[in-house]
């Protein structure tokens, strides 16, 4: 009896943890599995293993266009939102002023706003402004959703940046610009790169805002959405999806490693380990 009691909590917890992870990742695992299936219908058992769906991808001009569009939007949106994020994160971590928390909250808010609503609102604003829908409007929309993520990464990198490091640089004769170039920038660089990667990944995968704000040019998720109408195109979509999945996973991992490095770097431990 005692033995069972001792085992049970651990057993239940392990089972719970296993189900948890399965729930999170099982659907995602089907994607790569069916993408190497010879049959066009995603059904078990697999009829055979092939890479032909992957080989077909570069031979689809519409897909190449969509990839280019996604890259253009992703790079623009990540650079823009990271620049804006740097300015805001620097101000919020470095200075103390009234309304600092409120401003931080407002910047982070798009994270929890329903994306459909944001997309519709942006569409209305763009049309009111007389902007014709294009990749440019998609970039603007993506900047809006990326800034909260950029802020999160950057504030964790800037937080605890020991001001005395910049003072030490000035004390040793360096100008304000020289201090920025030789001390501030190298120290926060990992956080900046991390923010760029996170924003790029989000923009690459984002569908709703791109769907509302794009004109005739499709980004990758919109291209995928369009292809889903044709059953025969499904394996190609699965192959493309698998590639996107791995790209996102890789980029986010690098971003997280860099973010951690930045966070540990800015923390000047001084004499704590005396």
């Amino acid at each position, binding site marked *: 009896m005692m033995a069972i009691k001792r085992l049970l909590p651990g057993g239940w917890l392990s089972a719970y943890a296993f189900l948890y992870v399965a729930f999170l990742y099982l659907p995602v695992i089907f994607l790569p599995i069916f993408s190497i299936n010879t049959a066009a219908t995603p059904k078990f058992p697999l009829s055979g293993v092939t890479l032909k769906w992957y080989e077909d991808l570069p031979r689809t001009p519409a897909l190449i266009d969509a990839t280019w569009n996604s890259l253009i939007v992703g790079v623009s949106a990540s650079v823009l939102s990271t620049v804006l994020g740097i300015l805001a994160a620097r101000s919020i971590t470095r200075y103390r002023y009234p309304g600092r928390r409120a401003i931080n909250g407002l910047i982070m808010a798009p994270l929890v706003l329903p994306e459909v609503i944001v997309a519709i609102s942006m569409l209305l604003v763009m049309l009111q402004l007389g902007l014709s829908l294009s990749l440019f409007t998609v970039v603007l929309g993506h900047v809006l959703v990326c800034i909260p993520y950029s802020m999160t990464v950057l504030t964790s990198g800037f937080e605890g940046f020991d001001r005395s490091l910049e*003072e*030490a*640089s000035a004390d040793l*004769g*360096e100008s304000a610009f020289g201090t920025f170039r030789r*001390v501030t920038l190298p120290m926060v660089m990992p956080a900046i790169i991390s923010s760029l990667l996170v924003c790029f990944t989000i923009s690459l995968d984002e569908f709703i805002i791109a769907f509302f704000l794009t004109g005739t040019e499709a980004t990758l998720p919109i291209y995928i959405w369009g292809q889903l109408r044709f059953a025969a195109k499904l394996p190609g979509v699965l192959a493309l999806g698998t590639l996107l999945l791995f790209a996102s996973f890789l980029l986010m991992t690098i971003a997280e490693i860099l973010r951690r490095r930045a966070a540990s770097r800015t923390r000047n431990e*001084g*004499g*704590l380990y005396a």
Partner: protein
Amino acid sequence: MPELSLAERPHQSERPQSERAMIEIRDVTRSYGAFKALDDASLTIKEGEFFSLLGPSGCGKTTLLRMIAGFDNPTSGSIAVGGQPMDGIPANRRPTNMVFQSYAIFPHLNVEQNVAYGLKRLKLQGDEERRRVEEALAQVSLTGLGKRGATELSGGQRQRVALARALVMRPKVLLLDEPLSALDKKLREQMQVELRRLQQAVGITFVLVTHDQYEALAMSDRIAVMFGGKIAQVASPKEIYQRPVNRQVADFLGGMNFVKAEIVEENGASLVLDTLGFGRVRTDKPKAFVRNGGQATLGIRPERLRVLWDNATAKFEVAGKVVERHYFGEITHLIVEIPGLEKPLSVTETNDFGADDIPVGAPIRLAYDPEALVAMAD
């Protein structure tokens, strides 16, 4: 007190003192709104001097140091370094270098790169830069650690890097902001000796900010004691300790017994005071003594009261009763009630003659030297 023999400690008066002023602080006030972090402070620090700013936190000592470095500006008043007024001169163009409390070692650079940081701008010829970096590393006993990463250093090593990085610039003044506060006791005491030696060797004016009175006493040529944004006293360690100008200074620099006194006679050089416990005494009149009514305070350090054993007598003695005894290894701390005194006296006695065996409640006689009595106005 750090346990160091006299031979080990570089003596205060070994190096000839220049009388030339290196730093001149004139009527400097720094206000933040209604709060005055520094209130009309004036001070002259001499060339080649080891000078300490001593006081509790919030007394304005760090504010003053940061204004000398150029990280902060006086609301009014002026600061000159090496005869040059510093008004409007930013930190990067001042002939001062600082050792920060957190050391502020650049974490993305190694030891060598940290030390060479300021030299890079000077664009030195040939291998002059490397030579100077090595010389600085040798001065702080870090030879061979140049390639070590900043994050792989111990607290003591970080402190040495911070020192080398500042010294390599050959500043006119080295500013040290609580440089030893993050180190453990043993390392701190070792670094006190090393810092003093280093200062003697390089001959640069050192200005140290500290809240540790023993640190200030052990290292400085002169000390400024500060309270609430004001400079209370500027003097040599010995004078600060033996002749504090008021109760606040006396209290901050270790234990002191205070006895109420009545001024009987006052003339140019001496005071005659009446006390209940010590009777009528004549003492030197401190330079800063300003009479405040008929009352004064007489102070005596606990170690200047000696226990009189058996039938020994002294010219000046007080008698009382032991009420408490505390054992501290090499010394014993006695609390002695003296008839007529409102507060019992603290006495520290070495244990050579058995002070640790004096029973509580026993009658006791204490000898003192009238020289050890300090008159204070408040």
